[in-house]
């Protein structure tokens, strides 16, 4: 079966003064349809670059990125992206933000309203549909951004440290909400994070990356059943996997001198 997302020997380097900087040095990874994969690693390991390439915002220097077996050529509404900085259009209300992608898809107004309302309800922002982003808290902004991505019904969700700027409690609530929605719609999710607990709690597989040069260090299976609950979060098995991931993230071989 064709993987949903496939990275094949992907290299990304940027020209810098007197040479080039390698952000990603030959990464290969297959993500199956309906799979939830998290990527964790130290800063500078190229995890965001990996996601940007799947999104079509960044082109690989070498290697190929495939979605449904096809080369990624630029961004498209089949892949929804959630950014850490929310990236809401501050001059639009929550509803207009969510409708942004639907307008581009040329949907009839009735269908547009219906889908926007559904997405807003899904993230629990119905009461705030006509509010401007500046009046929302960080967690509500990110829920609005998630609703905006859901509204166009992408097959793939690419999430770039989406909960990184939120407080611990809000983060856990959004994790549970994300898993609940995922258990119903089973979109393929590629989720970048620097939080080991978050990586293990959400994913079926955790990809651990290493820095200098950025590369995939190891892939760890998370053999915990869904739905994930508080009980699982506190179980010894969760702790064991968490320790394993933690170990491979923070006790990697010393980085190569640069």
């Amino acid at each position, binding site marked *: 079966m064709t993987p949903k997302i496939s990275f094949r020997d992907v290299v990304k380097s940027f020209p810098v003064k007197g040479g080039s900087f390698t952000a990603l040095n030959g990464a290969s990874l297959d993500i199956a349809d309906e799979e939830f994969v998290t990527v964790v690693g130290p800063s500078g390991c190229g995890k965001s670059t990996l996601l940007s390439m799947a*999104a*079509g*915002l960044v082109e690989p220097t070498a290697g190929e990125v495939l979605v449904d077996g096809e080369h990624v050529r*630029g*961004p*498209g*509404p089949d*892949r*929804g*992206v959630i*950014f850490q*900085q929310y*990236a*809401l*259009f*501050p*001059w*639009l209300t929550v509803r207009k933000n969510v409708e*942004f*992608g639907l307008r*581009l*898809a040329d949907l009839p107004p009735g269908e547009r309203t219906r889908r926007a309302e559904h997405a807003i*309800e*899904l993230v*629990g922002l119905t009461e705030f549909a006509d509010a*401007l*982003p*500046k*009046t*929302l*808290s*960080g*967690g*509500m902004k990110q829920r609005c*951004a998630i609703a*905006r991505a859901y509204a*166009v019904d992408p097959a793939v969700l690419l999430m770039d440290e989406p909960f990184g700027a939120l407080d611990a409690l*809000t983060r856990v*609530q959004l994790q*549970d*909400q994300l898993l*609940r*929605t995922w258990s*119903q719609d089973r979109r393929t999710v590629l989720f970048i994070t620097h939080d080991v607990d978050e990586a293990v709690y959400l994913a079926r597989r955790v990809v651990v990356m290493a820095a200098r040069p950025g590369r995939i260090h190891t892939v760890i299976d998370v053999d915990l059943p869904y739905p994930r609950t508080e009980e699982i979060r506190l179980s010894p098995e969760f702790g064991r996997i968490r320790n394993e991931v933690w170990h491979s993230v923070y006790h990697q071989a010393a980085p190569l001198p640069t």
Partner: protein
Amino acid sequence: MSVVSVPEQTAAQPGAARRTGRRPVRTLALNIAAVLIGLAAWSLLSVVGVQGLPGPLTVAERAGELIADGTLATDVLASLRRVLLGFVLGTALAVPVGFLMGWYTTARGLLEPYVQFFRTIPPLAIIPLAIVLLGIGEVPKVFVIFLAAFLSSVVAAFQGVVDVDRTLINAARVLGASDRTIFAKVVVPASLPFILVGMRIGLGSAWGTLVAAELIAAQEGLGFRMQQAQLYYDLPTIFVGLISIGVLGLAMDRLLLFAGRRLTSWQETR
């Protein structure tokens, strides 16, 4: 349906409304006190100090005369017409040119040398050239004001486009927006605050160029009236002209500031 109702506090701080809305009464009282003290100092100077300096009452009297015979209204209208015409034309050209420079590197490469070069020349220095090339009618005056407004606004519009948050552009792209849509739906609204600031600077600059522009053989206008008054050593009329220019400039600036606040009320207050 999995709806979570999380009791989250909204980010609206109680202080924000007061900062952006009504000014505290104390500040207003201080402003009024400052004006009164200034008037008192002016009266004192005219009585005991500077030879020939008219006091506030003399100036008010002259203002009354100039209003009564319609001179002030004619002059104000003539000046406002020139400034607004020059300002509107200048801004109307500056916004598309600034957008072009911000969006297309080719346009930037071609236009930037000219914009940066002419920006360093005070518009007043163009006056001799404008007279020789455009004659002594309304055209050279409006042209100089136009140039002043254009050069201030074009840089702001350009900077506004360059400074648009890349993440917002990416957010639109991943939702399937074309370059044209991104420009109209993201770049234009996102750079609006910059453009409004540029327009305010442009208006100030246009207003400042006015008096000098009216020295070019004008028949009416605040600058012309002051120039005439200078010939007859008519200080009260000069004061009326100065105060009119100040009050009108302040009024236009506040108007633009107010309109700008309304248009960009979505901005986060930092």
